[in-house]
């Protein structure tokens, strides 16, 4: 067992637990894009950043999905520094892939209302979820990363239909970029923010760490109408 401080709370978790799992266990929500309980953590999206420090030491930002809980660690999941970095990340993701509902929802949730970067319209954010899904859950390894740097993308060997692929659809199921935004893929404005005006159906409201249900019920109801 390891003892650490989470947002001022003294907690004890089992050895080998990641900070993300610890926070989740204690009911603190940390946004993620490339994490899934059933897959090995990957640390690609950096959205799960938290601030950690040893007593007396300097604090640093680490990705909580890959960072193991350590004795005496002081963790802050919603500090000002974390929120600033997280908002910037969401803004960058909005600039990359505005057609994704997952990202639009995050933007509304974290009050990201404008994009200051060159607008792109990618259909992949390279979170690697599909690759891990294919390998770890489907035991297929039909897709993977090819090329590197700016040309990095997901593909099959030789960009041809893979023999290993059983068309299970697991990759599409888990893809955060494939969840199209409510207005469809061709919406002009890069930020939707429709959920921003709804007051979430929670009792208490905090600016940074909101506790409303995910996906937001109020928002879903409005779409169905």
């Amino acid at each position, binding site marked *: 067992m390891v003892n650490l401080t989470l947002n001022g709370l003294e907690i004890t978790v089992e050895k080998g637990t990641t900070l993300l799992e610890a926070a989740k266990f204690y009911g603190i929500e940390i946004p993620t894009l490339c994490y899934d309980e059933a897959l090995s953590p990957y640390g690609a999206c950096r959205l799960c950043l938290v601030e950690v420090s040893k007593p007396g030491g300097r604090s640093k930002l680490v990705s909580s999905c890959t960072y193991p809980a350590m004795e005496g660690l002081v963790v802050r999941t919603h500090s000002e520094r974390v929120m600033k970095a997280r908002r910037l990340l969401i803004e960058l993701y909005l600039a990359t892939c505005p057609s994704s509902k997952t990202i639009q929802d995050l933007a509304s949730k974290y009050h990201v209302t404008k994009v200051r970067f060159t607008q792109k319209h990618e259909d992949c954010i390279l979170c690697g979820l599909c690759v891990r899904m294919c390998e770890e859950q489907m035991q297929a390894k*039909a897709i*993977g990363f*090819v090329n590197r740097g700016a040309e990095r993308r997901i593909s099959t060997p030789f960009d041809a239909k893979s023999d290993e692929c059983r068309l299970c659809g697991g990759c599409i199921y888990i893809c955060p970029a494939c969840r199209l935004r409510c207005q469809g893929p061709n919406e002009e404005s890069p930020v939707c923010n429709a959920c921003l005006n709804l007051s979430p159906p929670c009792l208490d409201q905090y600016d940074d760490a909101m506790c409303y249900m995910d996906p937001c019920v109020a928002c879903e109801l409005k779409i169905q109408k």
Partner: protein
Amino acid sequence: MEEKYQDEFEEFLKALENGEVTAEYDGKEISEAVCPANGSGKGDNNEENNSIVSLLQEIQKEHHYLPADVLKEVAEKRNIPLMDIYSVATFYKSFSLEPVGKHKIVCCSGTACHVRGGKKITGEISRLLKIKPGETSKDRLFSLETVSCLGACALAPLVVVDGEYCGNMATSRIESFLEERLPLQKE
């Protein structure tokens, strides 16, 4: 199992455990370092990738590029997922999935070489060989490539012909220079 094969079989198992077993391709050993028995599974991903690199290097040495069917065959024989091989093959610049020419001409387009007229040299070579940078001639004799700095800026502008570094190139002597080394065809 027959009596006389028993020993052999046990020996083989031992070798497999020690990772000494090697597969063959085209009757030749590809690389001793690779064995599906060691270094598979998660965690030692790096080791696995390293062995793929040496494997690909061997193939590239043999064929001058990485032919798709050879990669597929190797993947099957070695029990390495084809996706892993393809990922590594596309990751490194030094591997080519397309056939390249017999002679490789590399022009430096780094800062120092650019300042000293590297672009003109590239243009001239490109004119002489009738191929653009990044292309291979139809007869598969020449490939022209540009790189950003070869780390020998004092010799700028730099041209590398089949691994031979030739510094202080000048447009005026490039033709005779290439003729000395390459089977250029004159019109």
